[in-house]
């Protein structure tokens, strides 16, 4: 029983923290080396409850009751960590619409992508982010996507093959899957080669990249655009994929979405900001503009290494600061916000990649402070 509930990976990421990874549930646990040692002791097939409790009493100065409580907690925790919730799958047959759609072609370097949207509303799911790649409709496309809705389900097809279906309230999963499929097309690969897709924006200086994470509304995208206006490159906005072969972050060519509150602050830096269309996004209850990259897609590198992650927080009530923070603080935001491949070799690569990451938190309200700190980060 112990073997089936054991974490598949136990890896120290620094002097203080250990990551446990459970294969069945693709769950990560960030914990201390003390916990990790207790769990290893528990997992020892020769260890009985009595010997475990006795060991804790002798070596950890705990009483019998406390030691038994720890044994029970580990038993419960390990059992729960391997539990997998069943998924509902959509089994009914779906047919791609053959007429009445809105067709639009896009060009990414040499790749021509055509998307058939069932309606103008469905089009708003992905078109605004990639409008800057629009070309005249081209029947000689490399990839054809169909995006359409039946009843309460949204569907994504690629070259006539069903990729996924999502309830309408989960449209952000369709957007994420589309982002992944477009990334596959642009970088000529497939889903099996990605270690993770992070909910993060990534900035580069052309040689290396820094990932920005934080809750929605923390100012990641606004800061990304500010940094772009000051000579940096936005490698990815909102969707940052990590590739297995080189453990580099790969470009996702979406425009950066900024919300109403940032329009005035960015106006001095972005030419013709007023002329960009405003999309009223009820989902986020806010008006949004999409800022395309300043430099052309073709002139930019496709991927870059990353060894710094910054948790960004726009907060006018606090002093501006950039400080190193614990790995735990970053992982708390990064993991639940991201897809990480459930394959063991990918989980191992993710942990090994993260071990080399320097973790920071930026609190800012002064744009110049944030920009100067990013310049420092890239020069270190």
């Amino acid at each position: 029983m112990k073997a089936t509930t054991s974490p598949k990976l136990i890896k120290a990421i620094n002097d203080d923290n250990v990551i446990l990874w459970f294969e069945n549930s693709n769950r990560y646990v960030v914990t201390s080396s003390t916990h990790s040692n207790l769990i290893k002791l528990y997992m020892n097939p020769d260890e009985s409850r009595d010997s475990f409790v006795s060991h804790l009493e002798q070596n950890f100065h705990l009483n019998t009751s406390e030691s038994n409580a720890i044994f029970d907690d580990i038993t419960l925790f390990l059992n729960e960590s391997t539990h997998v919730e069943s998924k509902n799958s959509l089994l009914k047959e779906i047919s791609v619409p053959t007429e009445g759609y809105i067709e639009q072609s896009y060009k990414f370097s040499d790749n021509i992508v055509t998307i058939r949207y069932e309606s103008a509303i469905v089009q708003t799911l992905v078109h605004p982010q990639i409008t800057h790649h629009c070309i005249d409709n081209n029947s000689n496309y490399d990839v054809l996507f169909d995006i359409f809705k039946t009843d309460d389900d949204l569907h994504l097809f690629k070259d006539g093959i069903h990729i996924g279906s999502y309830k309408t309230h989960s449209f952000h999963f369709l957007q994420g899957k589309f982002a992944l499929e477009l990334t596959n097309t642009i970088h000529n690969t497939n889903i099996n080669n990605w270690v993770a897709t992070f909910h993060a924006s990534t900035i580069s200086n052309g040689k290396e990249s820094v990932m920005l994470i934080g809750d929605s509304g923390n100012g990641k995208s606004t800061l990304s655009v500010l940094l772009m206006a000051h000579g940096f490159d936005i490698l990815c906005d909102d969707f940052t994929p990590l590739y297995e072969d080189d453990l580099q972050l790969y470009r996702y060519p979406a425009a950066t979405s900024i919300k109403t509150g940032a329009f005035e602050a960015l106006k001095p830096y972005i030419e013709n900001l007023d002329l960009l269309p405003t999309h009223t996004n009820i989902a986020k209850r806010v008006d949004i503009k999409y800022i395309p990259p300043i430099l052309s897609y073709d002139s930019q590198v496709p991927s870059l290494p990353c060894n710094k992650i910054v948790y960004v927080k726009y907060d006018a009530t606090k002093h501006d600061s950039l400080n190193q923070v614990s790995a735990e603080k970053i992982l708390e935001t990064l993991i639940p916000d991201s897809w990480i491949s459930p394959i063991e070799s990918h989980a191992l690569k993710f942990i090994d990649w993260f071990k080399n990451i320097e973790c920071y938190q930026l609190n800012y309200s002064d744009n110049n402070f944030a920009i100067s700190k990013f310049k420092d980060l890239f020069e270190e």
Partner: protein
Amino acid sequence: MKNTNSENQITRKDAIKKMSKYAALTAIGTFVILNPKQAQASSPPDPGGGLPGIED
């Protein structure tokens, strides 16, 4: 200990309830359970938000 659900299906209150579940372990030190999302996603909508015309 903090417990974060991949699909945001549990509320903060539920999470706190779960946190107290492993009281003996959390008393020792850092113990954070983190579940990645089960699929790729863009930024989720704000609570109660939907896409105009998309939801029935």
